[in-house]
């Protein structure tokens, strides 16, 4: 009897506590202004359903960009269902409870605005830029599809058809694209990291309405998203509008944790040649996976990318394109996939002799980074270019800024501190590059794929 009473009392307390929470503690977090070294006021808050919000105030133009980023990408595609995350991106334009199929597009275009969406390996972005008097319209549209997307068999069939047709056209127009995914498969020998986000006919046909609904309910929930506004708006006003449109959208289950595969050090292939009748010019791909770089190494890695491949004065561009003239075209970057990074290069050459020569020059140049200090002049150039690109991305347009802020926030759980980020890169010395090169540039891990026309 006593135990029963205690239980009853506990229930009463619990009910009381819930009520107190619901009536007094149910509002969104207070707006938290952040000192970030930005030329614009920057703040963030969180709705009680878990939606993270970032507001960047810039009234220089009567415009606003809205970016909704869901922490989901091809990495979350179930096995044998590659392409589901990308399909979901398409389906988000196919209508929700109050917005007809493709009406999202028409509403934005009628307002003179622009919109788009993109899916990366771990994020899906939806974004609009509109005149600032149309902010409510965008929030209404985005909240409707977050709250009540309408999915059915016919819509899924239409999107599958569209994705397959696009893929067919792409394989003709961009014949090298499939080899980028091949390099991913070699560097990341695991389904979640290594498959093509575009899917393929077999995988797309495996996807059912049930899969799509489960995916939507699991990942397209406010507690798995970041909403970023950048433009002609005050934080307080933004909060009022966002609370109105988003706060009653139910929180979802906690999204699953980020996949962390343990890749083997042995690649399936380190140097392969493929003959492809669809390509007209010989091409070479280079890849190198960098496992679990430390966060304090990242600024030096960013700079390493600039020294090696970014810009016409970078080492490889000068060597392969300007001086030796073995490459007709060269591009590359250091791709960041959370616990892994990969250095990727792609070049076109006149013939196989040039391809072979390029391979040797790339290896020699990478080896030089392990043996010699980079010059101060090179380092100054790399730092300046990095500084320009970094500031340009964060200050050029509202959309670029909102995308960069959302990406940074999802990656690091905080807003970027401009001064800190730039100072970290500024501190890099030739010795930092040398030690980093010695750690990561291991010749035994270099991968090459040569693609030759028939």
């Amino acid at each position, binding site marked *: 009897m006593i135990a029963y009473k205690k239980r009853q009392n506990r229930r*009463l307390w619990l009910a009381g506590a819930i009520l107190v929470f619901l009536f007094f503690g149910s509002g969104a977090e207070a707006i938290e202004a952040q000192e970030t070294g930005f*030329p614009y006021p920057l703040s963030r808050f969180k709705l009680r359903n878990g939606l993270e919000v970032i507001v960047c105030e810039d009234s220089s133009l*009567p415009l606003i960009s809205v970016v909704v980023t869901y922490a989901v990408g091809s990495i979350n595609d179930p096995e044998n269902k590659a392409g589901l995350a990308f399909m979901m991106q398409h389906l988000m334009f196919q209508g929700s409870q109050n917005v007809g199929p493709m009406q999202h597009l028409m509403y934005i275009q*009628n*307002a*003179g605005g622009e919109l788009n969406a993109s899916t990366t390996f771990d994020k899906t972005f939806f974004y609009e830029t509109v*005149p600032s008097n149309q902010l409510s319209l965008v929030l209404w549209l985005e909240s409707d599809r977050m709250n009540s997307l309408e999915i059915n068999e016919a819509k899924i069939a239409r999107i599958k058809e569209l994705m397959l047709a696009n893929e067919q056209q792409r394989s003709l127009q961009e014949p090298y694209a499939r080899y980028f995914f091949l390099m991913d498969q070699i560097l990341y020998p695991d389904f979640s990291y290594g498959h093509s986000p575009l899917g393929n006919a077999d995988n797309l046909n495996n996807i059912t309405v049930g899969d799509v609904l489960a995916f939507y309910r699991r990942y397209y929930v406010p507690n798995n998203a970041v909403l970023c506004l950048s433009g002609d708006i005050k934080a307080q006003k933004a909060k009022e509008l966002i609370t109105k449109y988003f706060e009653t959208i139910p929180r979802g289950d906690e999204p699953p944790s980020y996949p962390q595969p343990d890749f083997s050090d042995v690649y399936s292939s380190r140097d392969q040649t493929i003959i492809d009748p669809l390509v007209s010019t010989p091409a070479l791909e280079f890849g190198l996976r960098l496992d679990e770089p430390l966060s304090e190494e990242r600024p030096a890695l960013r700079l390493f990318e600039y020294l090696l491949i970014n810009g016409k*004065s970078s080492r490889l561009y000068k060597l392969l394109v300007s001086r030796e003239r073995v490459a007709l075209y060269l591009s590359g970057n250091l791709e960041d996939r959370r616990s892994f990074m990969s250095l990727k290069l792609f070049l076109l050459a006149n013939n196989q002799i040039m391809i072979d020569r390029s391979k040797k020059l790339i290896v020699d140049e990478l080896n030089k980074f392990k043996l010699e200090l980079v010059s101060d002049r090179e380092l*100054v150039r790399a730092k*300046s270019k990095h500084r320009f690109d970094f500031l340009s991305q964060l200050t050029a347009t509202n959309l670029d800024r909102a995308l960069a802020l959302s990406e940074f926030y999802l990656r690091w759980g905080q807003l970027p501190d401009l001064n800190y980020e730039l100072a970290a890169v500024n501190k890099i010395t030739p010795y930092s590059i040398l030690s980093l090169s010695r750690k990561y540039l291991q010749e035994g891990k270099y991968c090459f794929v040569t693609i030759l026309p028939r």
Partner: protein
Amino acid sequence: MKLGGNRKLRHCLTGLLLLALCSLNLQPQERFRRNPPYPEPLNPMKFPPVESGVLSSGLRVVTMTRLNKPLFDLLVIVQAGENDSPRQLSGLATVTAEMLLRGTLSLSSSAIEEQMERLGIRGNIEVGADYIIYSFSFLEENLEDVLRLVGSLFYDPIFSPLELSAVKRDFYYQQLARKKDPEKSGYDFFLTRLFAGSGYNPGVIDEESIRNISQKDVISFYQRFIRPNNSLVILDGNINLNNASRKISQAFYRWIPRPVEPTPAPHLTNLNYQSIVFLDLPSPDVSVIIGNAVSPLGSSDYHALLVLNQLIGGSPASRLFLNLRESKGLAYYAFSQLSFFKNNGLFWIRVKSSPPSVGQVVKDVMSQLNSLLEARIDPLELEKAKAYLAGNFPLENQLPEQRAKRIGFQFIYQLPFDFWNKYYENLLMVSSEKVQEVARQYFTRQPLIVISGDFQACLDSLREIDRIEVYNQKGQLTASCEKGVVKNETR
């Protein structure tokens, strides 16, 4: 009593809890979700304050003051372009413009590239019929070094023969690639036909003439046209006119003025074109270009033309796209646009379609144009077009470089000083009567119709058309076609 009190309290709390939960999640959707919200009043875009002055060399300096931004934008606009290239040397303006970045007395081409990256500069060159625009974005702290470097490009170029060969080669291959694209080559052919006999080159380049460009031609173009007294520098950043003028005059002081004789740019007339022109080239797709001359930028018809363009084909929500693509599936896309040149404007439509649909596309576009002459424009459609244009204007001017370019056009095309700031005001005043008046003025005559693609593949679909002239890629007339009957030209 105590227990009873607890029970009451429990019931009361449970009821409140249920009520609260219901009010949160279980209620039917909120009323505001059912319909899109009304927009707030539009906040018109204002351009940043512009100041302007002229240095003793004749170089005009324009500043657009922008505070608290870590980047600067610099535009150098030369008031000469492809129309100033001699007729047999089309492409000379473009090649000369590029050569300015390919070496000075003290810096090689690769040293310029390296300096630009060291100073955090991103650069671009755009060559039109009437202008060359160099645009540079860079880090604020490097302003003086950037001005020094850019200044030296204009007063110290060396035009090395080796670099000239490289520039010509790249440009030649770009032009060859352009020729293979049915839309681009169709548009070039359209411009050539429209401006034929006027003596004006709207920017069409014959790739074979690139081969004939010599170092002497480049030097001559530079000396005749790339002069400070024929140019303006626009600086957009945290700087006022006095400071900017002082720094620019120091950096560009060795750029010597010379008398510049402008190349004539005659007014085009809106003509009646009798036959359709077909540019025969191998391609699975077909492009249709339809258009005619309209009044130049800054004329009293400008804002009505913008609205008219928006109604017809300015965006995917316009008539052409909805009709040809969405309703009938005849085209991959269908848009219209306005292009402006010195003393002239063009209204033109571009449609990408397939051989079996091309005849119907031409018919439908013409009927869309004719409907604007006769049927009254729905006021709602007119307001939608104006709302789109008003809303889209700040998007077209998001980048400092885009705003600076518009200010540059004010000078090149001698527009009123407040032309862009009065955009909204003038747009709102456009009535359906004015749009229809402009449509009648420019669409009553038969426009020039150019189709580019594989003629044989399109023939079936074009049998109803009275007369078609067929040209090859060299611009030679090869055949004519009357109601589907082809007659080869023997000339």
